[in-house]
């Protein structure tokens, strides 16, 4: 399906991520297969003067809310992404029955729309989920993705056995399965995990081989107001391995874009800082603003797109939707249309996706 010169951004299925994907060009999409991570809706805030619902009541509420959303998800994916391959992960759905229900709703509907969705499972997935997934995978013939995490590598003999069990339960062979090793935030274990990954039996036979990690911090509290640089160690590690000439099989690159792999759900009443996250070649430039001061988005946008210091760093309005958004917003500091947190996250993710695709496309 694809080799190591391919990009798998892992994205929660939320408005900013959807819009960031939607605003990629077809050419950029050719080098990308996003991994869509479905997430539970947030419980509604209690009305003024009303008591907050109990946890059980909230769970019922969000489950009901997800069920209402499920039929629309394939259409959302079609609109934002299109019909080229994308992975879809149900593991953040709260319960196994709901996961199975989601699988059974989304995958058939997606197929009817002509989508190419590859379900993602992991070794700890419930047997019912595994079975439901494998049935659909075989039916639609799009394969399946096995997502391994660092804990799976604690006992290699056990890991190899579990992989064999997984293939057996799903009645699949390696050539039907995309193997994704996901370090999540444990970037510091990159070298160890990539070495261990090379020992996985029949590594060359898996349909694709992907290595994921995320280096973006969980929040910006360590950033000062203004200009900050954070190493894109996820990309730098991968790039170093690609040039190492030591690997039996080179993985495709996967990351969590400009978000932390274990991102907390939004805290209620949380007012995000008016910050811009901008991907550079091997760093992120974070133009940090203050909480709640949305006009600072415009100030940061003007600085990023116009300040002499960023000549050569800012790629120009024509580079991507996100770059264009930054340049446009930077033109008028007095505009009442400052953009909100979702708009700016969209721009930041889009810039990151475009930057990364460009880097991969230009690999030797």
């Amino acid at each position, binding site marked *: 399906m694809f080799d190591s010169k391919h990009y798998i951004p892992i994205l929660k299925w939320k408005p900013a991520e959807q819009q960031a994907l939607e605003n990629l060009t077809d050419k950029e999409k050719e080098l990308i297969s996003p991994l869509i991570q479905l997430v539970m809706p947030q419980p509604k805030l209690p009305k003024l003067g009303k008591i907050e619902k109990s946890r059980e009541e909230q769970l019922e509420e969000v489950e009901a809310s997800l069920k209402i959303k499920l039929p629309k998800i394939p259409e959302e994916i079609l609109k934002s992404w299109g019909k080229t391959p994308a992975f879809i992960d149900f593991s953040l759905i709260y319960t196994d029955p709901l996961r199975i229900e989601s699988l059974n709703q989304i995958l058939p509907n997606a197929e009817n729309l002509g989508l190419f969705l590859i379900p993602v499972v992991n070794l700890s997935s419930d047997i019912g989920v595994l079975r439901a997934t494998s049935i659909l995978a075989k039916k639609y013939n799009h394969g399946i993705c096995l997502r391994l995490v660092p804990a799976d590598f604690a006992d290699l003999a056990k890991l190899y056995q579990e992989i064999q069990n997984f293939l057996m339960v799903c009645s699949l062979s390696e050539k039907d399965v995309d193997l994704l090793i996901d370090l999540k935030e444990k970037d510091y274990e990159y070298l160890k995990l990539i070495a261990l990954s090379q020992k996985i039996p029949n590594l060359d036979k898996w349909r694709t081989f992907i290595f994921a990690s995320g280096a973006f911090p969980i929040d910006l509290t360590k950033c*000062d*107001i*203004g*200009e900050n640089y954070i190493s894109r160690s996820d990309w730098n590690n991968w790039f170093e391995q690609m040039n190492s000439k030591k690997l039996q099989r080179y993985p495709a690159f996967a990351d969590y874009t400009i978000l932390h792999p274990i991102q907390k759900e939004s805290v209620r009443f949380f007012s995000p800082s*008016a910050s811009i996250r901008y991907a550079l070649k091997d760093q992120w430039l974070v*133009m*940090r*603003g*203050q909480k709640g*001061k949305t*006009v*600072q988005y*415009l*100030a*940061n946008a*003007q*600085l990023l797109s116009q*300040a*002499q*210091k960023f000549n050569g760093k800012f790629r120009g309005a024509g580079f991507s939707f996100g770059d264009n958004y930054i340049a446009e917003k930077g033109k008028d*500091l007095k505009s009442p249309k400052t953009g909100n947190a979702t708009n700016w996250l969209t721009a930041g993710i889009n810039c990151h996706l475009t930057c990364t695709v460009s880097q991969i496309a230009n690999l030797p």
Partner: protein
Amino acid sequence: MTIKIKVIKTEEEYKESLKLIEKLMRKDPDSNSEESEKLNLLVTLVKDYESNAFPDSLPDPVDAILFRMEQQNLKPRDLIPYLGSRSKVSEILTRKRPLTMSMIRALEAGLGIPAKVLIKESDEFRNENDIVWSKFPLKEMEKRGYFGKKSLTNANIKELMQDFLRPVGTPSEFMGMAMLRKSYYIRSLRPMDKQALTAWSAQIVKKAKRISYPTKFKSGVVNLVFMQKLAKLSVKPNSPLLAQDFLKNNAIALVIEPHFNKTYLDGGVIMTNKELPIIGLTLRYDRLDNFWFTLMHELAHIALHYDQNINLFYDDLDRADFNHKEEAEADYLAGEALVSKSKWENSPAKLIPSPIAAESLARELGVHVVIVAGKMRHEGESYQYLNSIVNQEKVRKYFPEIKWDK
């Protein structure tokens, strides 16, 4: 009306006497009448009581008139109905002529300035014999070497002070210039010690006189363009010295002299010598942004207020002074010279207190980044912002000949 006049001994008698003065004033007695005599006598007795009971509690009468003029936005010519003529107004405001009873009555009735304020003698600097030399910050002056090799121990303080002041004029001349006879303005929310201010002023004049200037000062040379040109020197590593040189070449003295306790002074400008305006800076805050703003503020006084009513300005710039037109004008022009309003309004620096925003605007303006950072801190009404920038550039180090307090 039968009035019993006697020496005032108690506060009650004092209040009673004030009421009587008011009553008599309302009657506006003829100058040769018995009532007028009684009025004069009462005033003398009240003055006598006040000088013993609360000598410093009332403002100087001319200060009170100037304050009321400021409040009511009055020009000197508006005082002619109360004081008699243009020349009398001028003499009163420059403390060359005392107020008469008829003037006091007219000012109380017309401008609402209490008679008890107007009848107060002007302060001690009026008469050299009244000067209390021990009120000067003598120890600090000695520590700074104001008295040369002479020591306070066993010295005649009066002689020591007279020697100190001699190069700038006789004591009464200089102190009159500094504090009485010429019009001056002190910008501060806190009371400033006039003796300390006088000592500081004398020292900066003495220092300024020691400098040789290649030319004579030309009125009108200081304007916005001049100030903007000067501001661009701020990017150079030793900009305070370059500024001093630049001003010297235009016959403007820039003298550095630390402030005294109880003066809270950032800077001042003395424009009494028309051939040599003198700017004194105290470097009370050892920061480059303060240096440049204070310098520009004092230059703005030269640009805007040279040869006008006020020719001495003492500035504590910790707070804005919205009540005084000249101060607001000087703040504005200083701001324009450093970070013009049009640039500021359209800059990210106005919106976000980030170092890069400061740096970007500074580069655009061609001034040092601390100037923009200082403006951002001031406008944002938070002095926590951008500490790392504004605290990194010190100024006192350029003046090692001064013994700075640690």
